């Protein structure tokens, strides 16, 4: 049986998704990227293949995406913007706006009804509004990153955070802690500050329902709610949100293989 692999090599995590000939997601893995992207990619792919008891010879086509895509030694490389659009439109066909918050990039993408990217915007070189910013702040608050969102939900009086620079933001957080501000109030203030920046990026492409959120930060409930409050609608958030780019890459791998083979694409809904 042929399988199609998508690998999303992000700055924090490397995600691998495998779809079968019908386009069903059959396997996925997430590993830490670490210092050597190619090592992470190899490990993620090996584990994903192991889960379905398949060998590398069964991989018909492989597409890499993410910042490490150039070194992935795949059959093709596609930007994470197109991959997130493909993945999100596949899971939620009504998607028109996608917000992806990854480790070092935040992207707002507007897609057409056929899933094609119409326009997009990305954060600049600054890490404000990305997963890395939250990671640094969680450390300053001495809170596990995974708990930061839930902790912020307990706040009744969010502490406004004015510094967008990660370094100055950390100093500001430390200063608030020293002043006796509750940790949950700082946490909510941080989420609201990032949400404001992220929604500003989304407005640059135009916010149109349905909105789908992807990327690792989508697992943070505090972040999700802060964004939803600003845009005035709920967002599609799949259990596979973190895998969206890898899934999109796997589907594009399948598209390319089918195109090369002269087959018609027959998507199967894996939602």
């Amino acid at each position, binding site marked *: 049986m042929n399988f199609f692999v998508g690998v999303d090599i992000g700055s924090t995590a490397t995600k691998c998704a495998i779809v079968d000939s019908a386009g069903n997601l059959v396997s996925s893995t997430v590993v830490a990227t670490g210092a050597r992207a190619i090592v992470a990619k190899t490990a993620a792919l090996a584990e994903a293949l192991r889960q379905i008891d398949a060998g590398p010879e069964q991989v018909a086509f492989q597409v890499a995406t993410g*910042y490490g895509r150039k070194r992935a030694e795949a059959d093709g490389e596609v930007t*994470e*913007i197109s991959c997130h659009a493909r993945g999100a439109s596949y899971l939620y066909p009504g998607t028109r706006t996608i917000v992806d918050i990854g480790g070092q*990039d935040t992207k707002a993408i507007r897609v057409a009804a056929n899933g094609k*990217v119409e326009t997009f915007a990305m954060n600049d*070189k600054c890490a404000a509004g990305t997963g890395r910013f939250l990671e640094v702040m969680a450390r300053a608050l001495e809170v596990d990153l995974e708990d930061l969102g839930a902790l912020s939900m307990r706040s009744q009086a969010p502490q406004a955070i004015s510094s967008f620079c990660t370094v100055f933001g950390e100093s500001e957080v430390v200063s608030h802690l020293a002043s006796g501000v509750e940790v949950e109030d700082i946490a909510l203030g941080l989420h609201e500050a990032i949400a404001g920046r992220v929604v500003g990026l989304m407005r640059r492409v135009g916010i149109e329902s349905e909105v789908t959120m992807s990327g690792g930060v989508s697992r943070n409930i505090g972040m999700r709610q802060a964004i939803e409050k600003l845009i005035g609608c709920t967002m599609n958030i799949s259990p596979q949100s973190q895998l969206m780019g890898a899934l999109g890459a796997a589907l594009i791998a399948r598209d390319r293989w089918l195109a090369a083979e002269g087959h018609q694409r027959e998507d199967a809904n894996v939602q």
Partner: protein
Amino acid sequence: MSNEAFSSLLQRCSEALADRRSYIETWKARRPGAKVVGYFPTYVPTELVIAAGALPVGMWGGPVAVSRANAYIQQYTCSIVRSTTEYALKGTFDILDAALFPPICDAVKLVSSIWNLDFSDRFLVDMVNLPERLDSTASVEYLGAELQRVGDTLAGLCGQPITDAALRAAITSCNRMRSLQEELYRWRRTAAGAGVSLAQMQTVLQAGTLFDSDEYVALLEAFFAASGLATSAGKVRGLPVVVTGLPCQQPHASFLDVFESSGLRVVNDDLFLGMRACGQIAMDGDPYANIARAFTESVALATRYHSQRPRHEFVLEQVRAAKAKGVVLLIPKFCEAEWFDLRYLKEQLAQQSIPCISLDFEEDPGSLGAVQTRLEAFAETLA
């Protein structure tokens, strides 16, 4: 690329730009007592400088580590303002006898004032007060008088009057330079010029802001004479796009190379000086008025406005003429003038269903990974 004539032209331009001081020193050695006048982009009428017997030299910034200039200019200013001031403080521009500025934006007005206060003991600093509006008949009269004033200043500096005959000769040389640069653009859109990268074009055009105009004209004419015999044809690769942005701060060559490595081919742009800064200047009549009129008839930029010839029409014309599939809006970081135009340009392009993307940049390109991703993604949307 395989065109030997272009390779030879490129090498000559690259070598001169890599060691501008040597070029200027050699030029001065051949003309004892002759002056060198630096000018800040986007546009200063170099014909006046040439007519005064001086060498006009573009004062470009570059990816220099800015340290001294931070004591003079805030850090949230465009990089060319900071880098040129750093160069001035390092003494790089001490070879100049004068520095002319156009009043293109608040940041440049600020920096010219700082230079006037702090560097006027090293070289003369003056502002050529160009009008902001191109669509007023008063602009021609006003600019003609302003050019007379600048001409008198230059004549005083150079110790020789600017005669009408000398000014007409300078206009002839600069007109020829601009028409050859236009021809170069047309040539690059043919199969023979298809292998020339955007960064290589930047080098050749930027060299026009260093070379003696007659020497530059001779170089380009020699290139066309030689390339006319060449039969080599490059393969046209990449999706055709137009790049628009303020022709003031220039992107680093490595930044420009990302366009091509992302699958895009820049078929037209308004990034460079020369033929973009000012069109052909008429020869009959008062040369000062003719320069002023040519300026008011030039294309609109973020910093110069014409109610009847809005900037987007020029961009749309470039798209149509080159059959481009999209537009890249290139914005110098912290450039208020370009940011002001951004939304308007995007709306105009959207009305014509022309895809576009905006990218900001600094002279120091830094890490280009995010730029690569943006441009590749744009290419994917165009494919």
